[in-house]
């Protein structure tokens, strides 16, 4: 008998404490032992997790109005400029924006982390002044308690798959993929592989607009497809599927988040970024979905890319799977090199476990997508037109 489940059936089981939930790692030996059909029968939800640097992140903040009021036209939080071209006291604070006094040592991501941890943030704003908003400048301090809204809204998070970065240059280079040593001296990669949300539902059967997710320690939602969303897959000459670029735009209440699952980071020579913790529960609606979530590191392939090449299309130096990468050493053009994950597998595992526990306790219910992502998308370059 082929199992079919609905979201409502799964949520009913969660509410009555009868749902069976495992993580995307725990499901692997279960499927190996019992097979897809039996596992589909027994398991209701599989949880995934990722905790890595996600540069396209930021926060929407509303400060409330001062008396006399000001229509803020330029705003700085701890000397980090936030975009103020939205009404009077709304800003968007980008994670990668550097501090004007400390440069790359502090940035938007640090302001976000400091806000979450309850610290006082220095606010400075200037304006031309208008009849309805006469004030021309303000300096004050804010905390997450003092402001109206602080909403994390990240336009591109949770990359489905990502390149392995190496460098053939004769000098050390500093990239968003970390420090790359000369002459293919190391290799850096950045996904949680078999635990990664979009690698466990690569066809986006259950992940779409409106999906409830674990975001930074609280419950958030998928707002849209992520920017640069590219759902198509490639097949290499040996028939292996290479996932490229499914991405997510996510949203959630910053005030409820925890610095255990959101952290500011600095990549030397590149800049500031935000390390974001995301977990997505995947409902086992049928055996096709069970097949997807039982994916193993050795079945997920990615390309080794030369980041020293200064153009958009960088040369590929071969392919490798995540089992090889996670073992700590790979061979690139005949050379054995150490690998670095950049994305924390230990934390990804912790997030998938935490999400599992929240669902088991009935605190987290599954939300069916309100709308699915597009099946196809174009990845357009920026043309220089004169």
């Amino acid at each position, binding site marked *: 008998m082929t199992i079919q489940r609905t979201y409502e059936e799964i949520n009913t089981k969660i509410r009555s404490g009868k749902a069976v939930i495992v993580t995307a790692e725990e499901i692997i030996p279960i499927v190996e032992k019992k097979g897809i059909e039996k596992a589909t029968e027994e398991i209701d939800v599989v949880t995934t997790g990722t905790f890595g640097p996600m540069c396209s992140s930021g926060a929407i903040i509303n400060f409330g109005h001062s008396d006399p009021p000001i229509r803020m036209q330029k705003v700085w939080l701890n000397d980090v400029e936030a975009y103020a071209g939205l009404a009077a006291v709304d800003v968007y604070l980008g994670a990668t924006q550097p501090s004007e006094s400390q440069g790359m040592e502090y940035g938007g991501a640090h302001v976000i982390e400091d806000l979450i941890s309850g610290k006082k943030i220095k606010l400075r704003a200037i304006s031309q002044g208008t009849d309805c908003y006469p004030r021309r400048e303000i300096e004050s301090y804010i905390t997450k308690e003092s402001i109206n809204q602080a909403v994390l809204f990240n336009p591109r998070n949770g990359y489905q798959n990502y390149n392995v970065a190496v460098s053939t240059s004769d000098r050390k280079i500093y990239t968003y993929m970390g420090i790359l040593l000369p002459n293919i001296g190391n290799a850096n990669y950045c996904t949680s592989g078999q635990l990664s949300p979009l690698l466990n539902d690569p066809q986006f059967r259950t992940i779409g607009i409106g999906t409830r997710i674990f975001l930074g320690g609280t419950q958030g939602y998928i707002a849209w497809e992520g920017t640069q969303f590219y759902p198509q897959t490639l097949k290499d000459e040996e028939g292996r599927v290479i996932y490229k670029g499914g991405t997510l735009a996510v949203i959630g209440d910053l005030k409820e988040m925890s610095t255990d699952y959101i952290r500011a980071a600095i990549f030397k020579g590149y800049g500031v970024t935000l*390390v974001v913790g995301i977990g997505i529960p995947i409902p086992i609606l049928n055996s096709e979905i069970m097949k997807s979530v039982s994916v193993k590191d050795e079945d997920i392939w990615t390309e080794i890319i030369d980041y020293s090449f200064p153009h958009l299309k960088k040369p590929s130096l071969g392919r490798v799977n995540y089992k090889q990468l996670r073992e700590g050493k790979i061979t690139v053009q005949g050379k054995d090199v150490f690998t670095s994950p950049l994305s924390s597998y230990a934390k990804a595992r912790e997030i998938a476990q935490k999400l599992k526990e929240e669902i088991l306790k009935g605190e987290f219910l599954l939300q069916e997508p309100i709308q699915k992502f597009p099946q196809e998308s174009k990845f357009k370059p920026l043309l220089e037109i004169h």
Partner: protein
Amino acid sequence: MLSKKVIFTFSPQNVERPVTYQLIKDYNLWVNILQAKFEPSLGGKLVLELKGEDKQIKEGLNFVRQIGVGIELLEQEVLWDEKKCIDCGACISICPTGVLSLDKETFKLKFDYEKCIVCGNCVEACPLQAIKVIF
């Protein structure tokens, strides 16, 4: 056979003493210079790996202390703030001696201080500024 990594701090008064020569000749120690930074008028720092019998290492270090050279054991000089660390592993691949790795079971970072040559690569690679080297 013991192996120890040490930092010697020289003052202008003792900067010209041939310490490595004496450790080799008088104490029969195997000496590997990992880092050296000297300015004759100001003093200097020397990071060494010493191998030898326990007694000889102790006596050799005692001699160095007697001539007024500061001694610190290297383990104390690599400061890894485990609370800040998120186990991302960015430090692993740039380490020339394989000091850093992820535990095969827990995937948490491991530090094998024995192998460390205090090059500082991990310090600049750590996105969370969780590693410091004092040199």
